[in-house]
């Protein structure tokens, strides 16, 4: 069984991909997974050569059978997402982008004219990169990431790792504490939570730490851009101490990091100022994994 190292953050924009891509650069014998399909950006830095791709299904969307619909208007009145429109010809249709798949219309329709229809919501890929095999996904416009999609890409990575005898799986997770994050953490061996020294950064760290605890998964904290607000960084360190989680390292702010990403370069490889901190985090994470 390969070991799964997951990088998440309670809040978006904390530097999760900066750290994951840098770890991907340093780590040997691993498969990289981008589980953050809502804002998939690892591929920009990994420059993958796609070897295999497949479409995947999202939530089923309501479909109204025009032959059975009598135009009673119940579904349109009930829909909380305003997803049901009437065409100029008086035909009831569902706007698939607005439909939230709640099935209320399906239950309410007295004519049983509404059924749920599978739709494709994106594609997932198996790719080769300079840094190892890479499993990632892309959503179609308006589609959203789901626990199902995260499970699928992680599952695929585990199959590949077993086939090829690869020891580690490195996962770039999504921000927040929702369904995709739950799916990302489940089954992980160690979770790195990236936090930034802001009020929202600390608050969201608290929430995501609680989520890791509920799974009883070991976790550690990385403070990114720590020197932008040393006072908040201190608060994060105090929180970590109180909760008994280790601060694996603190990455200084460096204007070079956003510049590197703009130039499609991995921050670790491009920016000298963050090298020590990233190496320390990498070393410690591998010990704890």
């Amino acid at each position, binding site marked *: 069984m390969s070991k799964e190292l997951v990088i998440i953050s309670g809040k978006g924009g904390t530097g999760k991909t900066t750290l994951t891509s840098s770890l991907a650069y340093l780590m040997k014998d691993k498969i990289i997974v981008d589980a953050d399909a809502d804002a998939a950006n690892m591929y920009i830095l990994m420059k993958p050569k796609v070897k295999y791709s497949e479409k995947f299904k999202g939530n089923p969307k309501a479909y109204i059978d025009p032959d059975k619909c009598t135009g009673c208007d119940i579904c349109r009145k009930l829909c909380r997402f305003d997803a049901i429109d009437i065409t100029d010809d008086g035909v009831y249709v569902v706007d698939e982008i607005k439909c939230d798949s709640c099935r209320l219309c399906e239950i309410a329709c007295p004519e049983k004219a509404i059924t749920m229809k599978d739709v494709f919501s994106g594609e997932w890929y198996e790719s080769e990169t300079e840094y190892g095999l890479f499993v990632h996904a892309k959503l179609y416009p308006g589609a959203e990431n*789901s*626990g199902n999609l995260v499970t699928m890409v992680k599952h695929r990575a585990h199959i590949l790792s077993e086939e090829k005898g690869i020891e580690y799986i490195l996962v770039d997770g999504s921000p927040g504490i929702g*369904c995709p994050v*739950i799916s990302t953490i489940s089954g992980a061996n160690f979770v790195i939570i990236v936090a930034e020294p802001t009020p929202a950064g600390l608050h969201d760290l608290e929430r995501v730490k609680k989520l890791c605890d509920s*799974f009883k998964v070991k976790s550690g904290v990385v403070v990114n851009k720590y020197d932008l607000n040393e006072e908040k960084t201190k608060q994060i360190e105090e929180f970590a101490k109180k909760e008994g989680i280790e601060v694996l390292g603190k990455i200084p702010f460096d204007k070079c990091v956003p510049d590197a990403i703009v130039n499609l370069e991995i921050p670790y490889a491009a920016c000298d100022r963050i090298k020590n901190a990233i190496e320390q985090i990498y070393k410690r994470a591998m010990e704890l994994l």
Partner: protein
Amino acid sequence: MKLMITAKGDNLNSTIDERYGRAEYFIFYDTESGDFEAIKNPFLNDQGGVGVSTAKFTIEKGVNAIISGSYGPNATDVLKVSNIELYKAVPGTVEENIKLFKEGKLQKF
């Protein structure tokens, strides 16, 4: 008593599935008779709410204790009020975990 074990396959030699809600198979095992029934997880490909659906399914099956790797927060909320005991599986097969459970060697989650 009736046990539920999350597994990657449909028999007692299958490996434990670390995941509760998105486990591949649920194995229901009767500790008195040694009989078991394997059911493919019907919620595996749902987009969300899988933990709660699985917890509901578990309760409907009249299970007394569950052996799985980890339990998510929403599933735990449902299971907590049902008097079902949650155990932490150890890496290995379903059979090995049942044996440890019978010997009282599995830790509660």
